[in-house]
């Protein structure tokens, strides 16, 4: 998809995909034949550049066709460059500008509480994204409002657009920081499926306040030359790289 489009973000998609598979496989209550079902669980992909991961999953679930994926980033395609709720069934948020998704998710959570609904809102943000001040506004507000139906997943892949997070603006012990804002927090290996499933179940059952999973991941996971390589944050693989990547992933 990214290769065909000649643009996109493979690194942050591969770091997030195991977490998303675990989430959709064990938690998300959605209806493929009724994408706008009001009582569905929400998934807010705040790091909207990980759209290849989202579209791949939505394809597996039946929301998107192979032809939809092939149209990624082209004029008129339902697969916009960054995930967009106005363009794609199964997408609950229009992302692309970092730092906004958790606030949006808080709004969804508050609405669910007002409706007396048991639906959950799951939000995924990147670690570089926590450099945005709005994330901390939202963390503070969610804790203050004691939303037990809001669940955050931080994709701690240690790389952002220009370079490693530690070089651009180290965010340090992000789990402790989120915890200090009044959230229950667990840290896991974001590629250990058993750990993922257990942590998601823990977060789902934690209903006295907001819960966060800080998932330590590898950017470009599964493709040797992309792993931990900042140059594959926002770059498409060439023909040769694509062939090697697909072989390694198969």
């Amino acid at each position, binding site marked *: 998809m990214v290769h065909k489009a000649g643009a996109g973000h493979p690194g942050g998609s591969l770091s997030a995909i195991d977490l998303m598979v675990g989430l959709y496989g064990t938690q998300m209550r959605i209806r493929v034949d009724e994408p706008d079902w*009001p009582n569905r669980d929400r998934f*807010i992909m705040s790091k909207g550049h990980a759209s290849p991961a989202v579209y791949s999953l939505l394809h597996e679930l039946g929301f998107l066709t192979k032809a939809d994926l092939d149209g990624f980033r082209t004029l008129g395609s339902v697969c916009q460059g960054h995930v*967009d*709720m*106005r363009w794609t069934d199964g997408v*609950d*948020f*229009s992302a*692309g*500008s970092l*730092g*906004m*998704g958790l*606030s*949006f*998710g*808080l*709004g*969804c*959570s*508050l*609405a*669910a509480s*007002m*409706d007396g609904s048991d639906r959950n*809102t799951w939000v995924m943000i990147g670690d570089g994204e926590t450099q945005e*001040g*709005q994330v901390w*506004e*939202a963390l*503070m*507000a969610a804790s*203050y*409002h004691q939303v037990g139906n809001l669940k955050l997943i931080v994709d701690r892949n240690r790389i952002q657009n220009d370079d490693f997070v530690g070089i651009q603006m180290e965010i340090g012990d992000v789990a402790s920081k989120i915890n200090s804002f009044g959230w229950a927090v667990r840290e896991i290996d974001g590629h250990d499926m058993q750990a993922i499933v257990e942590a998601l179940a823990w977060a789902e059952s934690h209903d006295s306040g907001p819960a966060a999973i800080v998932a330590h991941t590898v950017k470009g996971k599964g493709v040797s030359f992309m792993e931990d390589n900042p140059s594959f944050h926002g770059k498409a693989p060439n023909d040769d790289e694509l062939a090697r990547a697909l072989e390694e992933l198969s």
Partner: protein
Amino acid sequence: MSAPSTGGASRDGYGTGLLRIAHDPRVVVLEADLGKSTKSCHFRDKYPDRTISLGIAEQNMMLVAAGLASCGKIPFASTFAIFTERAFEQIRNGIARPELNVHICGSHGGIHTGTDGSSAQSIEDLALYRTIPGMTVLHPCDDLSTAELTVQLLEHNQPSYTRTARNKTPRLYDEESSRSLKIGKGSILRDGDDVAIIACGVMVYKAMKVADILQADGISTTVIDMHTIKPLDTELVSDLARRCNGIVTVEDHSVIGGLGSAVASHLSTTNPTRIKMLGVDDRFGESGGSEELLELMSLDISDIEAACRELL
């Protein structure tokens, strides 16, 4: 909570309007520590379960509103006009782009805000929000018209920005006449064929005074309360251009990008007309009384009158 101002300030109308639509359970009010100022505090008093305090954090507030709207709520989020601007990109990307039904109210707009000084005097909000696709931009002139237009937002079903003013100005509507207002339709407060004044917000009552003065000299003046800046009532503007000698636009806002710009850009491409655009020249305000500041910015009655006479 501060005592409600007795009639006149458009921000009071916002508070009244919210109470009039509170019967709809979808209505949710969001505050950023300025509910007493924007007057959403009256809704909070009666409906605390549907009022969400978000602290001094406007960026978060805009996206919380967006999330609520995505789940079928109709959020009304308010703060000072100037602080909505802090969240401009949140409004653009998080609310307007996904076409979410969020209604933003920026109170204390314009230099009329007064003694707080230039940091609080938003003179660019109307211009900013006009540029966003699908965004409705309102700036009513008194409390009763603000209440009515706020009520109409309940069925508006697209994002909007309403600027209200801090300070009282004379009422130009009564309960009955305010009910005839309609979003997107300019309100003709006085009809005449010699010259037309198109004004918004706190400048409308000054336009009415100018019309009185000109009337004494036998000059008949149309006065329009253009409470909706976007979508502009182009039909009305074109009609005025055809039958009057010229048009004066008046706004407590930068001359760049606001009501005057909207009128001029419409007429320059459809029916070139002599126009005088009165507003805040390309400069910031300062501390002072409302009237003193309007005088400083050449937005006094005498300035509007002079502009009208130049067009005759």
